[in-house]
């Protein structure tokens, strides 16, 4: 287990809504880590995850896990997803509608391990829903089933493709805890795709920043997002929803990950590279923020 370092060196040409792009990733990931792949949509995060899972074939390169070669274009090796011993969690759950919660979780096990299944159901608060069909569950419950199902075969890797993006903020927080719990119980190397910065800070031991198909940074979230950029005292990330022109300056409306609305002023030089929908960091260096107990 300790030697199961993932070594990735893959290239694939992607044609997306944003045009042609070459995804080119070289990195090794140590065993047991929880790595969040962060970047804008279309940056290639999901494709990278699918290549590790064997659901998408790279054009070139190698994927090695410990001593095992999962993919090698040079040697003509492409291990099918069935043999890769992974747990994959899809954004839209992908539960089997014809099976009960229990049977969904048990599906991936080669030899039925009832004790482990019961333990998983218990851990994810699913025991009382064991006999229900997925259609009778809420989004959060469905994703819990998907997590339990992926863990049931004790995979070497957990690959989670934006598992929480379809859920409300409240449920998202509680599921982030479940993911952390799942990771600490199994100590499985976990790769999670996200485009939510708050999520990165909650979950990631390491973050892999992906932009236009390339790795732009790999390390602790603090190092990647904060120390390298500014030494601010107050930092909030959010999305610009409105840019208004005042007399000599601009007024930006920014919605944060916690659905807080912030109004910020900006000058013409700042506004040049900003448009509505951009993700921005609102920070302040020059004063000490005040704290009030809520």
């Amino acid at each position, binding site marked *: 287990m300790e030697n199961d370092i993932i070594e990735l060196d893959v290239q694939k040409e992607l044609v997306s809504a944003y045009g042609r792009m070459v995804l080119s990733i070289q990195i090794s990931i140590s065993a047991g880590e929880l790595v969040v792949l962060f970047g804008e949509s279309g940056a290639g995060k999901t494709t990278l995850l699918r290549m590790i*899972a*064997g*659901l998408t074939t790279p054009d070139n390169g190698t994927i090695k896990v410990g001593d095992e070669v999962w993919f090698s274009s040079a040697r003509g090796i492409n291990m*099918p*997803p*069935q*043999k*890769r*011993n*992974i*747990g*994959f969690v*899809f954004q*839209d759950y*992908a*539960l*089997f*509608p*014809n099976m009960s919660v229990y049977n969904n979780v048990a*599906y*991936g096990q*080669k030899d039925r391990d009832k004790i482990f299944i019961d333990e998983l159901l218990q851990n994810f608060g699913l025991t009382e829903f064991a006999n229900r069909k997925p259609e009778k569950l809420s989004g959060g419950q469905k994703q819990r089933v998907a997590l339990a*199902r*992926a863990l049931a*075969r004790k995979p070497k890797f957990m690959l989670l493709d934006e598992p929480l993006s379809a859920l409300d903020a409240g449920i998202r927080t509680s599921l982030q805890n479940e993911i952390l719990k799942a990771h600490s119980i199994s100590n499985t190397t976990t790769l999670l795709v996200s485009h939510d910065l708050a999520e990165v800070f909650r979950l990631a031991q390491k973050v892999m920043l992906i932009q236009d198909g390339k790795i732009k940074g790999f390390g602790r979230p603090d190092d990647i997002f904060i120390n390298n950029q500014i030494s601010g005292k107050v930092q909030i990330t959010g999305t610009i929803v409105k840019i208004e022109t005042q007399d000599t300056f601009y007024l930006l409306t920014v919605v944060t990950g916690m659905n807080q609305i912030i109004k910020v002023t900006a000058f013409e030089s700042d506004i040049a590279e900003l448009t509505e929908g951009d993700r921005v960091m609102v920070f302040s260096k020059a004063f000490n923020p005040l704290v009030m107990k809520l």
Partner: protein
Amino acid sequence: MPSPFIQTLILTGKLAIYTTSILLVIGLPLSYFMAYARFRFKPVLEALVSMPLVLPPSVIGYYILVAYSPNFWFGKLLSEWFDVQLAFTFEGILLASVVFSIPFMVQPLTNGLRAVPVNLREASYTLGKSKTTTFFRVLIPNIKPSLITAIALTFAHCIGEFGIILMVGGNMPGETRVASIAIYDEVQALNFDAANQYALTLFLTSFVILTLIYTVNRKSDAWKMI
């Protein structure tokens, strides 16, 4: 010895059951292939499978009859190696009926399979399950309405088949004389009572089967499947 009426109905039912069973075995893998495989000549295969829907039965019946003849390699092979003559026999109309009913089995199944979200298959693969296991445990259970539609449509269509049976099988009591042929025959002989007996039986059977299909598909989009 049962009455000719019962004998004809039994023969009709036997033909429909055999055809449907054979087509289920052929149709499942063929539909899987048509739904998911990507290859250059796929439209050609799709067109071939759908041909019986647009061609007059007499055209297909004619070609099948030609194929059965000892002058053609297929007929020659059968008669020389197996001593089998297919023209004007039950086996002959069974094979013709299988060929002619392919689209009624394959089209609903293919549409059903295509409608299953791709990530259900992928989820199953990532859980270590083979394509075969995925097919039987994930795909088939999730296309039940399509499966029932395909079986019932094929069955109903076989019961009502006329032209191709007449071409390939003729009108031999107990061998190739199915209900639809019998109606034609009785009308020719001016036996309208007997014709009516057959006609009503066919009418009711088809009505019951179609009602069953639409009941099963009430929740899903039945028109799309057929």
